[in-house]
């Protein structure tokens, strides 16, 4: 069934764009799971590529050295990433948000350096010989499963607890939410899906190298989540798609811009935070300059005939 669909798709799509679509799907899974931690729970996580690496190397090593088949290896990659997430999350998520950012950054680097120095991962030469099993229908199924799972999760009692932690951790605690436990759970779930995405990545590219999981990859994922909108799952799909396709489109027409895209990601993160911290479709209670300006204009348009003094001076920006 999947093979039949894949045959149809391969005959319809040019192989280059087929590959871009697979990458986009893998990125969507990564950004969706990152959004659970950073968007819904409000914890800045700068090491998501580390979880992806754990999943990718676990699946890759099981596939090559131990001849595991696709599905068990993929699942093992997800579970391994989740286990690492638990070990990393338990001590670090007790820390205040900004320490967490540094701790997760350090974690991501430690994973990369470990992969670089172990024998079983192939070190700097990378891990070769993984069969190509991942295809577009499989990635689409994985995206749909991830989306539906996270969608029902964030709409559950648990998901509302996460949002409460994001909006005000002290108040959430006062309401009886076990904040550390909720944060760790969110972290572990996100790590699991990042591990699955890593496994799909391994079975698609057939070759793993530590440099595919560096700090800049985590930043790129963060830029996707922020552009699409923190705290909005559809936004993650949108953000991941835009940032995956845009450099591919620019690669032929403006190669200089595609090569230097990190400069623009950096500027993009700053600009979005100032103008519209919710990104394209976000859900937090914050508003940026863009919203404030639009609201003022709208209010000025409706209030204007009643004379001056009616326009409010300051606009509350949400909870400070």
């Amino acid at each position, binding site marked *: 069934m999947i093979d039949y669909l894949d045959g149809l798709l391969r005959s319809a799509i040019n192989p280059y764009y087929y590959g871009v679509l697979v990458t986009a799907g893998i990125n969507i899974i990564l950004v969706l799971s990152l959004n659970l931690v950073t968007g819904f729970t409000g914890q800045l996580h700068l090491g998501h590529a580390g979880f992806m690496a754990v999943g990718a190397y676990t699946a890759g090593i099981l596939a090559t050295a131990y001849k595991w088949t696709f599905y068990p290896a993929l699942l093992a990659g997800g579970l391994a990433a989740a286990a690492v997430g638990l070990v990393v999350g338990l*001590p670090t998520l007790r820390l205040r948000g*900004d320490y967490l950012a540094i701790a997760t950054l350090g974690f991501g680097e430690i994973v990369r350096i470990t992969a670089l120095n172990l024998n079983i991962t192939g070190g700097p030469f990378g891990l070769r010989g993984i069969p190509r099993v991942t295809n577009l229908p499989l990635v689409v199924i994985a995206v749909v499963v991830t989306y539906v799972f996270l969608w029902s999760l964030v709409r559950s009692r648990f998901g509302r607890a996460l949002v409460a932690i994001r909006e005000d951790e002290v108040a959430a605690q006062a309401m009886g939410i076990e904040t550390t436990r909720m944060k760790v759970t969110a972290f572990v779930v996100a790590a699991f899906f990042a591990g699955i995405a890593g496994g799909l990545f391994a079975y698609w590219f057939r070759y793993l190298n530590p440099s595919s999981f560096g700090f800049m990859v985590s930043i790129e994922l963060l830029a996707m989540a922020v552009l699409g909108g923190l705290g909005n799952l559809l936004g993650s799909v949108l953000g991941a798609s835009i940032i995956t396709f845009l450099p591919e489109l620019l690669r032929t027409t403006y190669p200089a811009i595609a090569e230097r895209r990190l400069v623009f990601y950096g500027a993009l993160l700053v600009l979005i935070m100032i103008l519209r911290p919710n990104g394209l479709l976000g859900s937090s209670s914050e508003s940026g300059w863009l919203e404030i300006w639009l609201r003022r204009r709208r209010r000025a348009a409706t209030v204007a005939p009643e004379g001056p003094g009616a326009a409010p001076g300051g606009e509350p920006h*949400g909870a400070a």
Partner: protein
Amino acid sequence: MFAQQLFNGLVTGSTYALIALGYTMVYGVLQLINFAHGEIYMTGAFAGLLLVTVAKLPFWLALPGAMLIASLVGVTVEFVAYRPLRRSSRLAVLISAIGMSIFLSNLGLWIFGPATRSFQPPFRVATLELAGIRTNTLSLLTLGLALAMMTGLHYVVTRTKLGKAMRAVAQDRDTAALMGISVNRTIAFTFAIGSALAAAAGVMVGMLFNAVTPTMGVMPGLKGFVSAVLGGIGSIPGAMVGGLVLGMAETIGVALLSSQWRDAIAFAILIVVLLSRPTGLLGRRLQEKV
């Protein structure tokens, strides 16, 4: 031999301390980890290099020049990326800071290219031996400058009106504003001073290692942050002590193990401090205010 390692650690540690001061002062007034601070250090090193090689300035003019340029960049970063977010959530400011750091380091790569540039000191460096410790005038100058700047900073923070304003803003921004302190101007000054110190560290390290690259800010940036946390983030004497301790711990660790572990030592110290004593060596106990 041990004294030699300790001295080398002291020289490295004094540059960490200079970087750590910027982190800790900004954290004091804004409760923000200024991720772009390592890039300010890089900017300072490049400014110093260009002032020496292109503008042919003598060292005693190039160093203040580099500090001034880095201050301007630091204040601009604050104005563009942090000031509009004064009332936003901490997450928003943190993401903005990450964005600024990525932007500046990749802009540096774009402008200067990835190659390492050599930074020869524009004066003669003599090797000398003091009480059995081999060193050179450049290391001694680094240590001396760092200590002088820290003393100067201590004077500014404790004895001047500006320092008083900085402490007031760090304690309670809104009350400080009610007392007639211009909060925005004080924050801008804090960024200017922190950036100038980081630039001084960048110039000295650039000459000590005879190397300047656009990515040179990443590791020292992290080390400076670790120093600030080790000493107690928000505490100025803590940042000085933290930097010196980290520098010495690193060189001793490298002497005992091997140089591959240099960066791991800093991370290990960070994790141990965060888990056992998150307020650091000299930090005060923080209470979460509602």
